[in-house]
């Protein structure tokens, strides 16, 4: 993505904020904030959760009116009475979770409520369809106007939202964490679309927790901390560390504080686990003290494997053993009893009972152990929540507060607390840091590392590649429902993992030395890249009991050929 030079300061900004204040009750969300957004620039808005980014966006979107200060539109003060006014002024906001009507087509969604009419007020479907097709052409994407919104990927839904914004002739595009749920290739396509819009002269305000994306896409950045403006500057001379320092206001230490740990015996064995149509023949082990990452694209079946291991979904074949003992399939209760814990991906639906209190949430996994004579002891319940809240440095007012008032990072801490309180031997975390701020993210990483050092076996599903590479002792890569690659820490880099995740890689997963007495050679597909450079001394210990078949690479197009040599 090309970096354009910082927008000329001689032009007036399309949209600007001057000395903007905003309070909610006693909370001062924004204090004297400035922002300049120029046509033809992609501007990043950085800051931790709670820094005031959302409030700022909502002011620009006309959802909130500032308590003080002015919004300047093309240099003259403007007051937006509601989102419709902001939209009419050419400001469009794309939220993280698209808000389309599932049962309507793409075209109907885009022209909702303002369809071109024909005689007698009938909707001119042809015109709607053609206009939509033209928008899709302009965005350079291939989405049929008649497709129903339901069933579109999040990425495609965002494209539809952008198309809708375009149809309003939006000059300012505000994107609030649009990439949180996107895969690498979807993100790339989104960025291409954004870049095209920018080149046409739109001003883009981009929010992301992924610093890499900010550097990739944007030219300037405005950083907020605790509702105040820290800096508004060009990204050209900055490093990620600089940016983090501005956001956090202190040194974070190492971003991925990986401790070298000695791995112990096998804690979790997954053997040929299969769920029809979702994933097939998944075998791996996790040792005590080890962090194993399960990487791959969204939809590769990673979360589904995690859920089947924990018993939320019932597998069709295969088995899960915890410390050598077979686990009753399809029962989270049995999995808990065996020492498994799952921090699910969807914190708000599955991780927490949002309207319940912190203590009730943390207590939910210990209902059996909190009681005496069948009755729950309030003191024990409270102590459990208090203790774990302290250990995880949870920020809260009262333990009886509903978890819905906590920030995303603190909510995730509650989920972690509720599971760590069960004293698990195997912890499965699914996207443990999605949507939480940099500071808390580092805390979660430190926590996971120290837990591993204490002997916990951790299986981590993650789409955040730096996190995978920074945290994992081993990386398992899934592609289209199969385990296609296993990469030890010292050989894992972005390219290898992404190549395997997209089904392009065909290197043997195990260290070369282990394959020495090469069994009847598996025919390698043509065009196989040379095996990775591996210094002989840096091998991971061989994985005992791993069926060789599960390491076999798939065919060229990632088409799963018949498995050979599976034990």
């Amino acid at each position, binding site marked *: 993505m090309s970096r354009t030079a910082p927008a000329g300061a001689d032009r007036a900004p399309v949209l600007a904020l001057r000395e903007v204040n905003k309070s909610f009750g006693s909370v001062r969300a924004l204090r004297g904030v400035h922002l300049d957004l120029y046509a033809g620039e992609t501007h990043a808005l950085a800051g931790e959760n709670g820094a005031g980014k959302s409030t700022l966006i909502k002011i620009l979107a006309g959802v909130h009116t500032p308590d003080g200060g002015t919004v300047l539109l093309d240099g003259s003060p403007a007051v937006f009475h509601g989102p419709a006014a902001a939209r009419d002024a050419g400001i469009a906001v794309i939220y993280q979770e698209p808000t389309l009507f599932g049962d309507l087509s793409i075209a109907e969604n885009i022209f909702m*409520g303002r369809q071109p009419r024909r005689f007698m007020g009938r909707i001119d479907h042809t015109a709607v369809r053609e206009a939509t097709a033209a928008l899709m052409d302009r965005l350079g994407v291939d989405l049929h106007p008649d497709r129903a919104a339901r069933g579109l990927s999040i990425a495609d839904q965002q494209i539809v939202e952008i198309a809708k914004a375009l149809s309003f002739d939006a000059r300012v595009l505000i994107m609030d964490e649009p990439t949180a749920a996107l895969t690498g290739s979807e993100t790339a396509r989104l960025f291409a679309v954004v870049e095209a819009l920018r080149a046409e002269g739109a001003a883009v305000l981009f929010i992301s927790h992924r610093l890499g994306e900010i550097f990739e896409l944007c030219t300037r950045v405005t950083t907020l901390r605790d509702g105040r403006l820290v800096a508004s500057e060009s990204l050209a001379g900055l490093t990620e560390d600089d940016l983090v320092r501005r956001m956090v206001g202190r040194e974070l230490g190492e971003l991925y504080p990986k401790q070298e740990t000695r791995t112990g015996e096998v804690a979790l064995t997954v053997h040929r686990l299969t769920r029809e149509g979702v994933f097939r023949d998944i075998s791996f082990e996790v040792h005590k003290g080890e962090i194993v990452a399960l990487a791959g694209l969204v939809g590769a079946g990673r979360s589904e494997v995690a859920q089947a291991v924990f018993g939320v979904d019932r597998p069709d074949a295969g088995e899960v053993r915890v410390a050598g003992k077979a686990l009753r399939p399809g029962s989270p209760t049995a999995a808990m009893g065996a020492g498994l814990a799952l921090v699910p991906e969807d914190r708000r639906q599955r991780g927490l009972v949002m309207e319940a209190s912190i203590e009730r949430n943390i207590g939910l996994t210990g209902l059996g152990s909190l009681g005496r004579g069948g009755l729950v002891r309030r003191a024990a319940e409270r102590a459990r929540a208090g203790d774990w809240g302290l250990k995880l440095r949870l920020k809260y007012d009262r333990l009886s507060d509903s978890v819905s008032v906590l920030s995303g990072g603190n909510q995730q801490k509650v989920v972690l607390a509720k599971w760590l309180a069960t004293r698990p031997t195997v912890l499965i975390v699914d996207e443990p840091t999605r949507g939480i701020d940099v500071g808390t993210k580092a805390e979660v990483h430190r926590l996971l590392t120290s837990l591993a050092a204490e002997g916990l076996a951790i299986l981590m599903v993650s789409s955040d590649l730096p996190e995978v590479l920074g945290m994992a002792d081993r990386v398992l890569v899934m592609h289209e429902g199969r385990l296609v690659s296993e990469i030890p820490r010292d050989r894992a880099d972005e390219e290898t993992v992404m190549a395997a995740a997209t089904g392009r890689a065909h290197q043997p997963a195990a260290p070369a030395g282990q394959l020495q007495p090469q069994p009847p050679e598996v025919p390698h597909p043509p065009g196989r890249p040379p095996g990775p450079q591996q210094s002989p001394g840096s091998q991971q210990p061989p994985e005992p009991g791993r069926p060789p078949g599960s390491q076999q690479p798939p065919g060229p197009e990632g088409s799963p050929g018949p498995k050979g040599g599976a034990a």
Partner: protein
Amino acid sequence: MNAPPATRAAAPEPPAGGPPVEGHREARRGPGRFLRWDAAVGALLVAAFLVGTGTTEGFSDTANLSAALNDTAEIALLALPMTLLVVAGQVDLSVASMLGLSSALAGALWDAGWTFETIVPVCLVVGLLGGLLNGWLVTRVGLPSLAVTIGTLTLYRGLASVVLGNKAVADFPETYARWASNTETVPGTFVPYPLALFAVLAVCAALALHCTGFGRALFAVGAQEDAAYFAGVRVKRLKLILFAVSGFVASFAGIVYTLRYGSARADNGLGLELTVVAAVLLGGIDFDGGKGTLGGAVAGVLLIGVLNNLLTLNDVSHEIQVIVTGALLIVSVLTPRAIAVLTARKHRRTAISEATDTALGKAP
């Protein structure tokens, strides 16, 4: 099951950047924190009692109070399992039909010359089986409880007619009939035996709901079933137990009803399920599940009982009584939400339009 509709989310923004607050019930946070609905219903009950004593002659006589309490016996009994069900996000509309079936069965068997001591366990077993059928359809077949129990509402009432037809069976043994009537009360009090039994059961239900892991799990299932399941709660087993208990209690209430009126008929307790649901909702149990107290439900039951009694004493017709109950129900469902909306509006007028806009996809 209860992702709150966005239009309801009308809450002050959390210290920015956090997730949107699930708005409804935010009233608990402002001044409304001190205004708990179940406490309000309790206060209303006391007020109704005082007004009744002041205005209506004979209301506070012990004989009348005994009668009033006894008239709510079945509603009260049915309200206990109903409260647990609604807290768990379920509902059992077949309770009154099960009451009728139990009554009809008792009548038919009595007619056939069975002893009353054998009839009671048979009826209870039938109630348990009926409840298990509801539970099985909800948990194993995966149908919504509202649909299932509307079906079994008809089914059980139909079975009742098959069992007893249009007949009415009377002349039940005097010892039992006296026990169920309000002429015989717990010595030294004006409390009739069915109500005394209800009091004991209510204490048990309150303990189960508010002081046990079972109760904690019920709230979690009602508020967010997925999260409860992911936390190892045996959701299906829990629901099955609830429906079984509900059927069991309904058949027991059927026996009480039969003895109290001294008449077994297939249409006994027709339409009573709605009064029970009304009482439970009036007591502040959220129909979406996950909220409420058993004390509130009991207050709701008693309030309906006292009001009906007062209206009867003042010669208000049954039709008007039904209207009053209905109006009260609507008010009870409406008020907490109205308070929530008003409180939120005071905090942030625009938060509402934001939520609405999000819900409408930012389209006009």
